[in-house]
């Protein structure tokens, strides 16, 4: 639509038939140029995303030596193994637990940040975003050291309050908790920033109108803030679910899947099976198990973004 607009405006109003012809050629040339400009992008997406995705599906139907096609054999073997069911469970616990915690903490902090005088906000925001800025593989090293069984500095602090030492990475449930804790620490600032941007876009008049109608602070939150932010909240949560569900760095550095493969998530298990044990087809199959879940999330994100664009128009 926009293209036609520019075209008409670019040509003088009194265009003869010969003129229209050159214009047509121009338009044809323009779409050719446009296509050429987008070509590197198309090549990149086609060659390094779409092709590997198709290749992954084919790869997952091969046997270990990649000599014979065994159909859905890899998927069957995976679904029959207890370890893999643990991986599915752990991935879900990890993603859902971490995202809920991140969303709540982020929402709370964004609100608190929004309430203080505008002058100080920048400073606080700058400090609170630091966990998000440090590459997660590196900050997780710091956490690993803080969780160290004999030198744990967190246990030292707990000790002051007479809390017994916690086996952070030794016991399965504590290890699961630690992995989530690190992910929440890393991801909450992102939620905070997204919510803060959304909060700032809610017009003040709405709150004034609500206050005149006698709304309490809680009602203002429930009937003004949340409906106005609904879209951003759902997009951020879904986006974070995808990223968290597919997370690898934290598990790899912190527990490497242990103790006894109980903190293994899809990504780390795929890595172990595919690259470390050298069974590429089965590793590809493990990764592909993420695909349906991610596709559903992606569909809803796209829907949310389209709806948002329509609202803005």
């Amino acid at each position, binding site marked *: 639509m926009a293209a036609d607009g520019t075209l008409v405006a670019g040509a003088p109003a009194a265009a003869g038939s010969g003129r229209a012809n050159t214009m047509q050629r121009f338009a044809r040339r323009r779409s050719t140029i446009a296509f050429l400009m987008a070509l590197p992008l198309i090549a990149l997406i086609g060659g390094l995303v779409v092709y590997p995705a198709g290749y992954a599906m084919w790869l997952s139907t091969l046997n270990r030596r990649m000599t014979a096609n065994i159909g859905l054999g890899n998927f069957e073997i995976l679904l029959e193994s207890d370890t893999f069911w643990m991986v599915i469970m752990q991935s879900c616990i990890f993603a859902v637990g971490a995202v809920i915690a991140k969303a709540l903490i982020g929402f709370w902090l964004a609100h608190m940040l929004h309430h203080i005088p505008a002058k100080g906000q920048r400073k606080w925001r700058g400090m609170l975003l630091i966990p998000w800025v440090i590459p997660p593989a*590196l900050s997780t090293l710091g956490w690993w050291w803080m969780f160290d069984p004999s030198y744990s500095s967190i246990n030292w602090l707990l000790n002051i309050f007479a809390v017994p030492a916690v086996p952070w990475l030794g016991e399965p449930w504590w290890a699961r908790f630690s992995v989530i804790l690190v992910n929440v620490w890393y991801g909450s600032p992102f939620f905070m920033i997204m919510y803060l941007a959304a909060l700032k876009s809610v017009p003040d008049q709405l709150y004034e109108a609500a206050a005149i109608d006698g709304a309490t602070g809680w009602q203002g939150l429930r009937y003004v803030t949340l409906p106005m932010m609904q879209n951003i909240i759902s997009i951020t949560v879904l986006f974070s679910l995808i990223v968290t569900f597919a997370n690898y760095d934290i598990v790899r550095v912190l527990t490497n899947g242990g103790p006894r493969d109980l903190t293994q998530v899809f990504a780390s298990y*795929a890595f172990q099976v595919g690259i470390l044990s050298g069974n590429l087809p089965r590793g590809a199959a493990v990764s*592909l198990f993420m695909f349906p879940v991610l596709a559903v999330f992606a569909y809803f994100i796209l829907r949310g*973004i389209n709806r948002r664009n329509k609202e803005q128009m």
Partner: protein
Amino acid sequence: MSASTANTIASYTGKKLGSLRSERRWALWTAYASLIVATIIFLAPPFYMLVTSLKSSSEISNLSGNPWLVRAPTLENYKELIANPLFRGFFVNSVIITLCVVAISMVISVLAAFSLARMKFWGSQALATGVFLTYLVPDTLLFIPLYQIVGSLGLLNSIWGLILIYPTLTVPFCTWIMIGYFASIPKELDEAALIDGAGWMQMLTKIFIPVALPGIIAATIFAFTVSWAAFVYPTAFVTTPEHMPLTIGVVSQLIRGDTFAWGQIMAGALMAALPPVVVYAFLMDYYIAGLTAGATKG
């Protein structure tokens, strides 16, 4: 400072206006208390990393006393690392990879975003949606087929394999936010340029790039941080220490055997984390604009 003045103002007026004001004051107090607690928790790990990196091995293994304080600060760990050719190699690899990836990503995404936002062609709408969907594909979904592909090109254990693959992480998002920035430029500008006889390339370099410069800076920062912090691909594709970038180098090579040189590991992690933090410190507004652009623009 602003906190205390705001509070005194709040308390003055509170006496006059009663419950509403005191409610506000309480809200302010809660806000500051939450922010202080959150800041302490958020900054504790990097702080502890810094403290550990300044300790000698004997001080680290000494269990008496507060581990959060350093008694005899020393720069020994940093000196040793900087003198270590392996670590310097990681750094050089990271710098080369990141520079190449940022340049490639920006060229591809600015051209594509211009064409998708302004020129349109058959299927361009579908391609724009495809770009966004590609952005949602996590690196852990496709690293095994990519391992095979990189391997068949003979690029395993080479930084060029990483330079080839990293753009899949950066280009989709950069293109997406550049489409948003380009689409917000008023159409009158291109009309004026067309009337003056500018070609499409001139239009891009003389009008769109200068006007959308904040967006370009935000996208560049994004590409930089992503390729600096990438972890899955180097872990999968590179096993020889001399070709490793910093992230996997620090994680896998500074840890040897059962005796961990914790001071050195922490010093290495902090030095590796420094470039993105410095960029963030100086270009915070662009950084945040890039972060929030994904959902608020486009």
